[in-house]
């Protein structure tokens, strides 16, 4: 590991003292982010597990809840996020090639997509709130099985809420590295933060790729009963 330290890299200003080469530093950081993402999978996994159990147990209530989702907003948001993943990937590529301007531009577009996603999610949240679909605080359900549909909405708010929180953190991280990139901190030999934040961003997208079918698509056309 540490014995293949190239002589030039040892003196690079970005190299932290306890690593012996920039390569080792990049490998460690990327692995650290992967391990962190595994913990994130387990974190969301708890909610996916609960969703699965209750969907199986209270099928018709779940269908009734699902039908209150507007799949057009969900689809639009999926497209927005996929586009943001593309621009993030392009930003990482630009960093590897050391093109400062391109990194900044792609990161800014990524931020815009991220904010766009949060805006659309906000519109949806507003709609659910207006229709009294927030269990506990603001809940009214005219049809049967009110408390079971409330369970569906509990999971809806918790899952999308934690996802949105991750998006907010992601936008913050991307803004930070965009600022650093603008200052010219990254070049082809050192772009670790861009790569690592990129991994995080793609992960948050992937969570949505699972939330989208489970919340919006799966019972959309189904007649409850």
């Amino acid at each position, binding site marked *: 590991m540490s014995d293949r330290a190239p002589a030039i890299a040892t003196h690079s200003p970005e190299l932290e003292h306890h690593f012996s080469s920039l390569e080792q530093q990049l490998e460690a950081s990327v*692995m650290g982010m992967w391990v962190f993402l595994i*913990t994130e999978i387990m*974190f*969301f996994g708890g909610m996916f*597990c*609960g969703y699965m159990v209750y969907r199986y147990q209270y099928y018709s209530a779940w269908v009734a809840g699902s039908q209150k989702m507007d799949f057009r907003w969900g689809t639009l948001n999926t497209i927005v996020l996929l586009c943001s993943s593309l621009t993030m990937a392009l930003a990482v590529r630009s960093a590897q090639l050391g093109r400062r301007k391109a990194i900044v531009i792609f990161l800014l577009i990524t931020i815009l997509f991220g904010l766009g996603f949060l805006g659309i999610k906000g519109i949806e949240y507003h709609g659910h709130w207006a229709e009294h679909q927030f269990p506990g605080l603001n809940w009214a359900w005219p049809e049967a099985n009110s408390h079971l549909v409330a369970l569906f909405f*509990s999971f809806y708010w*918790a899952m999308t809420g934690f996802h949105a929180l991750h998006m907010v953190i992601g936008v913050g991280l991307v803004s930070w590295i965009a600022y650093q990139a603008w200052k010219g901190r990254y070049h082809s030999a050192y772009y670790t933060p861009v790569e690592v934040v990129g991994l995080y961003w793609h992960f948050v997208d992937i969570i949505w790729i699972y939330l989208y079918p489970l919340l919006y698509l799966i019972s959309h056309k189904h007649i409850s009963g």
Partner: protein
Amino acid sequence: MSMATLTAPSAERENYLNQEYGIRSWLLTTDHKRIALLYLLSITFFFFIGGFFALLIRLELLTPAGDLLQADTYNKMFTMHGQVMVFFFLIPAVPAVLGNFLIPIMIGAKDLAFPRINLLSWYLFIIGGLFMLYTILTGGVDTGWTFYTPLSTQFLDTHVVAAALAIFIAGFSSILTGLNFIVTVHRMRAPGMTWSRLPLFVWSNYATSIIQVLGTPVLAITLMLVALERIFKLGIFNPQMGGDPLLFQHLFWFYSHPAVYIMILPGMGVVSEVVTCFSRKRIFGYKFMALAVIAIAVLGFLVWAHHMFAAGISLYAAMIFSLLSYFVAVPSAIKVFNWTTTMYKGSISYMTPMLYAFGFIGLFTMGGLTGLFVAALGIDVHVTDTYFVVAHFHYIMVGGMVMAYLGGIHFWWPKISGRMYPEAWGKLAALIIFIGFNLTFFPQFVLGYLGMPRRYWQYSPEFQVLNVLSTAGATILAVGYLLPMVYLLWSMRYGKVANENPWNAAGLEWMTASPPPTFNFDQTPTVTWEAYNYDELKEVPVER
């Protein structure tokens, strides 16, 4: 050793302790050794808080009547005893203190892979600890350490959310420590330090880290859902609103059973180091020892529902979980047999760390075997929620982990502080702890078998004799725990100055100065030998 003290007290070698002074140099440090000492202070503080609650519990149980504490207060005492001890002492004990200090040195690295994240872990631990203290000081919490729903979400009017938040935050400290260790072991090993040359202490902390990283997030989301349920009056785990309390138990134990292994695997690592050193022999079956800790970590994730045999899960599920629980005994037994075989025909010296290792092996064996009792469906129904279970897990957690932790602290004290602890006092304390522990917890096996339930502040008069024995043991135990506090502090100033390898032990940590310099080694070492090469070590007479 004495030469050095006589000739050069003025030109003291620069090390991690004297390189910088002042509170800032500690609170903003990224040196893994200093962070380890920060943890040492913090968890010792929480250990005595948790111990204080334990003492109140034992005093209340001195008599059958509920006289010292009322039922509600008693509920708070055992709840906070459990939460503080598990989340703020046992889980961080060996990994965050000894692991933090030793892992980079043992693999020949300058620091952990992410030194600033390491400091962040400690701050998260402290923030979580402050939430816990807030909970304690503003009236406490009485859910039991397990936060079972719907009790915790519907029926209690105590600081459940604050306590859950405390554990949530401390959990992230634990996750980040585990993450740091995993990446460090993969990416930071010195040239020649292959996986098969890693000390078993590193292996066992690596296995622990896997559990911390995979398990803790599940506890985090579970406690988050409990908090949301309380704050927004949701019904996620409330049966009246369609929620399922069993789901809570599944999610909770999915973390909290593996967490038991977070609380024992690092201790096994300590014992492996100590037993080889004081038997002057290479560990018996190195590969099996390394694989066994990984096996325990993996199997540990497949047995959680054995905590729910009496909670109404299906009989067939229970049978599978019972069988899988038995499988955990296999790697655990491999560990015990191999330690014993390592000692066989070794030249054993009975130094303090070795006494703790003996204690660990015996008590862990008892705790492990009684674990098989409760993993058996028929017996479990009889002893569920009795003192038998309490005795069983205290044999693992206190008899096992706390023994190993203290053994490790003594073993590496010369490395940490640069001073020797007083050996006679060390042995005395180890003996007192062993006697006090057994007197406290052995009667509880009997009590449980006779049917005394746990978590009650009163009991039938026929149980009094055994309870008095247990309380007497607890006071002895308390003395045993206070002693090392006193003489270890004393030794930091007055102890004999330690040379770099006072035990003549193998391992990279003994090849650098005591205390080590800030970057651990003057030059990155190159490893050309196997772990525990005691037969190749020159026998230097050890000054005692």
